[in-house]
């Protein structure tokens, strides 16, 4: 089994290390790319050597210059030899990802961003995700459980469920909501959360949902970490295309985030 695939471009002059991470641009190959429901796919690719943190993401592309920018996709699962991504087809880039097949080349830049500060967490933690904010929380739940933290998952869907089974091994409870009521609670996933019961809440998903979570946590005095989405060009902190205003000044979602303490956010 080939674990490390270095492309022709991997002839680097030097390697730089950051907290044991080596961010790299490399070519990998698709292990599988499965449609799991509706417009949701799971893409598995050979990973690079770098240690990756839950909540980090990669910039991906499966094209040359037909599209200009790479696309940010979070780590869904970091397996020993593979990186798994779970994505929704929404536009031209994810459409192309959905056409990928076993053995085809794909370029990755990463791991990017800070990831969740899991090392600092103890006790009982809730992960709360909505839509394609759900995938990054899976690796997060696993990492937390592996360090002895008790995790509850709150997963909000519009209609069809996905990824639920992937959370079960790492969570005490998995609470489900759907907007259509097809399964679980009918309504919003935030209806289910009681932040006071947790030492921290980690959330990812639509901004309105995260704002609600942050407000609830604030009221309950629970630490809350939000993983933000922003349009990105470079993905590594150089272009300032993803900057947001925070209480601590301008921050780059791709480099200083995507995970921010809700306290620091201005929304």
């Amino acid at each position, binding site marked *: 089994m080939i674990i490390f695939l270095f492309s022709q*471009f991997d002839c*680097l*002059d030097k390697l730089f290390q950051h907290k044991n991470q080596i961010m790299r641009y490399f070519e990998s190959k698709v292990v599988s790319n499965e449609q799991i429901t509706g417009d949701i796919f799971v893409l598995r690719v050979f990973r690079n050597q770098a240690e990756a943190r839950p909540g980090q993401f990669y910039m991906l592309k499966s094209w040359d210059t037909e599209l200009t*920018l790479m696309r940010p996709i979070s780590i869904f699962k970091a397996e020993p030899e593979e990186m798994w991504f779970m994505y929704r087809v929404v536009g031209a880039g994810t459409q192309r990802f959905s056409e990928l097949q076993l053995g085809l080349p794909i370029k990755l830049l990463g791991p990017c961003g800070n990831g969740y500060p899991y090392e600092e967490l103890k006790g009982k933690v809730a992960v709360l995700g909505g839509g394609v904010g759900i995938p990054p929380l899976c690796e997060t739940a696993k990492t937390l459980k592996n360090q002895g933290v008790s995790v509850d998952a709150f997963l909000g869907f519009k209609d069809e469920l996905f990824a639920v089974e992937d959370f079960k091994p790492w969570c005490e409870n998995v609470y489900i909501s759907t907007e259509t009521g097809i399964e679980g609670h009918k309504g919003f996933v935030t209806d289910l959360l009681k932040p006071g019961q947790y030492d921290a809440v980690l959330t990812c998903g639509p901004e309105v949902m995260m704002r609600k979570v942050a407000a609830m946590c604030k009221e309950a005095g629970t630490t809350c970490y939000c993983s933000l989405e922003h*349009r990105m060009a470079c993905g590594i902190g*150089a272009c*300032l295309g*993803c*900057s947001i205003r925070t209480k601590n000044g301008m921050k780059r979602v791709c480099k200083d985030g995507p995970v921010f303490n809700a306290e620091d956010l201005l929304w």
Partner: protein
Amino acid sequence: MENVNLSVKVAGVSFKNPIIAASGTFGFGDEYNELYNVGCLGGISSKGLTLHGKDGNEGIRVWETASGMMNSVGLQNPGVEHFIQEGIAQMRRFGNVLIANMGGHSMDDYITGASMLSNADIDMLELNISCPNVKSGGMAFGIKAEVAREVVKEVRKVCAKPLMVKLSPNAENIVDMALACEEAGADALSLVNTFQAMAIDIHKRKPVFNNVYAGLSGAAIKPIALRMVHSVCKNVKVPVVGMGGIYTAEDVLEFIMAGAQAVQIGTVNFNNPLAGRIILDDLVRLCVKEGIADINEIRGVCL
């Protein structure tokens, strides 16, 4: 392979090769330096500075278009002072040509900023005249040749460093603009900056950008950029640094054959973060294949 000479001179400054990272797309070099040795490039033009620093624009800042992208970063930067205190030392580590790119919204800002940078350890000042001029009603310095002439003349007085003026393709007449800047004392010209453009979110029925218009860059604009570089090179005597949609070594040769002394690469860094390095390697190979022993030989063959 090693026998190809890629070194070029722009306004007395020697570059080991003609590939320069374009302002605003490469930060101060350190992020890309995590991926490859950015010191291999001929030079780096810093993120666009303003005298007092800026937070930049609100809302969406980047947007993909057919073979290009639009940006509305709005010159987010830490300010000239901070750059002098920290940015320069950081960029100096790379060992290549250090270009400070600076913009401004008023004549005073330009003059003060330029004189501070003139006394700092930079190799070249790249003056971005595309910013809206607050005093003249938001019309950019880079649109009317007469406005540009004034700012370049004043900056020239306080700037002892080689002065490169970066032209906007939105200028009313790019050749007149180039001539005005040359006459006002520019040692070199660089072009093009981004094209004023627009995108609409039809679902929201609103412009994508808070500022309505934003700047278009990337491969889409290359043919227009090349034409502008060509017509400026035909008309000025100072060296011209060409840019706009350069993605490959072939593109680099096109710009040099059109008369450019060197080139800058911007958007391509986002498409492929190793682009600078790859274009450089390809350029050596391409020169060998095309029988070019010295890149300076073919400059302006299409003029």
